[in-house]
């Protein structure tokens, strides 16, 4: 039943600064943060359950969205609430926890998910806050427990630039991973899909997973994007819901059932051309990056990104990693003027068009910065996005439907199947420098509001 899928369109962006398959010996992040804006669809002001100065344990509820009070977001570490940072209009931007050296956990009780009922599994996930790791398509929001999905998808590999290597991260954690899968299987009647790359190197943890459908993928980025995989295996039609997680989230679920605690351990890949020694760090969700990059940078004027360079969010030098991210990218800022840059040969520049000499060196790695390399313009060139979007979707027509707020057209053109990250490459290659991901997000928010 498993499927083999060959992705033909796309683009692998090869950058300097791939993480070495090694984990830093000791790593301690003094503060951890949980950021409400990481949870798509949450109202700007969530209901806070803690106040500054409170002591929390790993698993203590921090806040919930008023529309879905059953979904709790809990503390990834134990310690003291240091501050609740507010943004515009009193929105909550960060809940910062001063972490204990030794983490203490709330005991949610261990249990074999195979012996529990569906409701018991669900309740355990909701109470411990682990449910927040289950996200859904369409809309890319936390899964709604009221509606069951037709399938759950787990992408066991990431093809984005400098992406973390999940085979390395899950190595030796087969039992916990399987427990996590068992719990997920219990939640739905449909299938759980585990998608792996077609490669000899795939970890046995994934290969030997039981009671799931294992699909194999080949091809360039975005073959590892779960949205692309869903599109090719079991596409989302209007009214369908699909849940998805990444492998470390499955491990967290596994730990919850195996050990009865919310174990928010995350292996974070510190990557990017400006990092002296790019490698992995073992920490918890929402870690502060300062200790990772201290004395570990090659230059000063850098962009710090929680996530990868295509879809990640900009954070400060002492900022915290996003809730769902397991990668930090550090690349040079591009705030310089370039004399006649558009006319020069541009030997060190990367471009998919062959108007730069980059095509002469297909396997070259690049050090790319954050310069736009131009200015925003109206759409002129056509057919560009189609080359990097391996979906049966007409990207520019969908984008124009969103810009004109045409709900019917958005539905017809497949808005339910996409999310920002699937269009990241379109944004990268765009000659007119259109903010594609932002437009897609606006479209998703708009249609979600319309459906409620």
């Amino acid at each position, binding site marked *: 039943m498993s499927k083999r899928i060959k992705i033909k369109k796309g683009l692998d962006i090869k950058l300097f600064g791939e993480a070495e398959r090694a984990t830093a010996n000791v790593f301690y992040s003094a503060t951890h943060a949980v950021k409400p804006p990481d949870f798509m669809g949450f109202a700007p002001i969530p209901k806070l359950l803690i106040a500054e100065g409170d002591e929390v344990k790993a698993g203590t509820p921090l806040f919930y969205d008023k529309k879905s009070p059953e979904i709790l977001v809990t503390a990834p570490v134990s310690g003291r609430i240091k501050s609740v940072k507010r943004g515009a209009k009193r929105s909550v931007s960060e809940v910062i926890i001063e972490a204990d050296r030794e983490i203490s956990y709330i005991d949610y009780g261990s249990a074999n998910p195979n012996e529990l009922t569906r409701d018991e599994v669900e309740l355990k996930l909701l109470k411990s806050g682990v449910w927040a790791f289950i996200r859904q398509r369409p809309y890319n929001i936390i899964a709604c427990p009221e509606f069951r999905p037709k399938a759950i998808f787990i992408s066991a590999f990431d093809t984005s630039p400098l992406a973390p290597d999940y085979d390395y991260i899950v190595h030796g954690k087969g039992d916990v991973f399987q427990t996590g899968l068992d719990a997920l299987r219990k939640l739905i009647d449909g299938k759980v899909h585990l998608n792996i790359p077609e490669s000899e190197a795939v970890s046995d943890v994934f290969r030997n997973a039981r009671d799931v459908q294992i699909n194999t993928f080949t091809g360039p980025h975005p073959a590892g994007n779960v949205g692309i995989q869903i599109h090719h295996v079991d596409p989302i039609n209007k009214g369908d819901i699909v849940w998805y997680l990444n492998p470390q989230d499955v491990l967290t679920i596994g730990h919850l059932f195996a050990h009865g605690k919310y174990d928010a351990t995350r292996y974070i890949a510190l990557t990017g051309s400006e990092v002296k020694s790019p490698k992995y760090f073992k920490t918890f969700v929402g870690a502060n990056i300062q200790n990772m990059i201290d004395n570990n940078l090659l230059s000063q004027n850098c962009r710090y990104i929680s996530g990868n360079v295509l879809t990640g969010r900009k954070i400060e030098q002492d900022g915290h990693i996003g809730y769902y991210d397991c990668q930090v990218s550090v690349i040079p800022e591009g705030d310089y*003027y370039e004399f006649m840059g558009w006319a020069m040969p541009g030997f060190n520049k990367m471009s998919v*068009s062959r108007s730069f000499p980059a095509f002469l060196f297909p396997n070259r790695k690049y050090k790319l910065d954050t*310069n736009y390399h131009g200015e925003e*313009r109206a759409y002129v060139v056509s*057919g560009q996005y189609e080359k990097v979007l391996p979906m049966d979707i007409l990207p520019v*027509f969908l984008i124009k439907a969103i810009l004109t707020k045409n709900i019917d057209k958005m539905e*017809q053109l497949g808005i339910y199947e996409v999310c920002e990250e699937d269009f990241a490459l379109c944004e990268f290659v765009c000659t007119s420098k259109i903010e594609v*991901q932002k437009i897609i997000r606006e479209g998703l928010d708009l249609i979600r509001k319309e459906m409620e």
Partner: protein
Amino acid sequence: MKFLRNILDKIEPNFKEGGRFSFLESTYDAFATFLFVPNHTTKSGAHIRDAIDLKRTMSMVIIALVPAILFGMWNVGHQHYLSHQIVDASFFEKFWYGFLKVLPLIVVSYVTALSIEFAAAQIRRHQVNEGVLVSGMLIPLIVPPDIPLWMLSLATAFAVIIGKEVFGGTGMNVFNPALLTRAFLFFAYPQHMSGDNVWISNQGDAVTGATPLAEAAAGQDISLSSWDMFLGFMPGSVGETSTLAILLGAFFLIFTGIGSLRVMLSVFAGGYLMGLLFNLWGANEFMLMPAHYHLIVGGFAFGAVFMATDPVSASQTNTGKYIYGFLIGIIAVLIRVINPAYPEGMMLAILFMNTFAPLIDHYVVGANIKRRMKRALTQK
């Protein structure tokens, strides 16, 4: 270049809002960004971006036009001396004659198009769009060498204002602006755009001055060999005569990924197929003209490579591009052969299909929607 940057940084505040010359903001911006790619950094979405921008894209098109421009200049001189039976004119004499003829056309077209674009950008408080650089170069290449300059200027102004700016500038236009220029001249001043006496600059009496197309339309034998026509040794608009020079540009455009291979191929395929059909029909001499002649005479090749491929006025979908190009080829040859009034059909074919490009896309998009609906039904 630090020195230049410093000057710009110093004078910049004068052109920004509240500055003394804020009414020239777009103009300043155009020159400043021409000299320096700005220091803007990504704010949302992808943090890294492809090095290409519209300036690069448009300059690639201009590079692709260079063979046609240079050959066109030489050929203007060549045809001139030929018509005066001066056989010992040197290569440089011919080129120089053509250069002096064509350069004013280029200057007038650029000055007109750019000043309107700058003004329009300023009125809309937009940036100047680079598309005008290509239009400004295309226009001189598709007019006869002796076109009066004021006419060219008027036609360019018409095309840029009515064809482009009123729709909101480059990217929003329905028709190809360069072709609109030609259409304007064609209908407003037909005596300067058709007949046997306009295609050779300052024509002598030694030749008739008829283009191969005109000969064919008149039912005469074409006086040139197909090699001559392929290489471009014939009277005609400045840049359109040499299929070889145009193909060089085409390969460059396709290789760099800027011109659409789909459109170019299907235009040639459509034209050739229609030519073959007429061969089968064979009701008159023109219909019996070998089908491949259609591809190398008149403006067919130039239209296929540089006009039909204009991404803004062409179909946007990949499937649509095949249909769009194919129909251009068919209609161009159809107009040439069937229509009694004028022998060339490429311009009208492309403008006609510009009108229908959104309709083609509409059906391609409709097919995509249907596929999705069907999938939803079969899965349930």
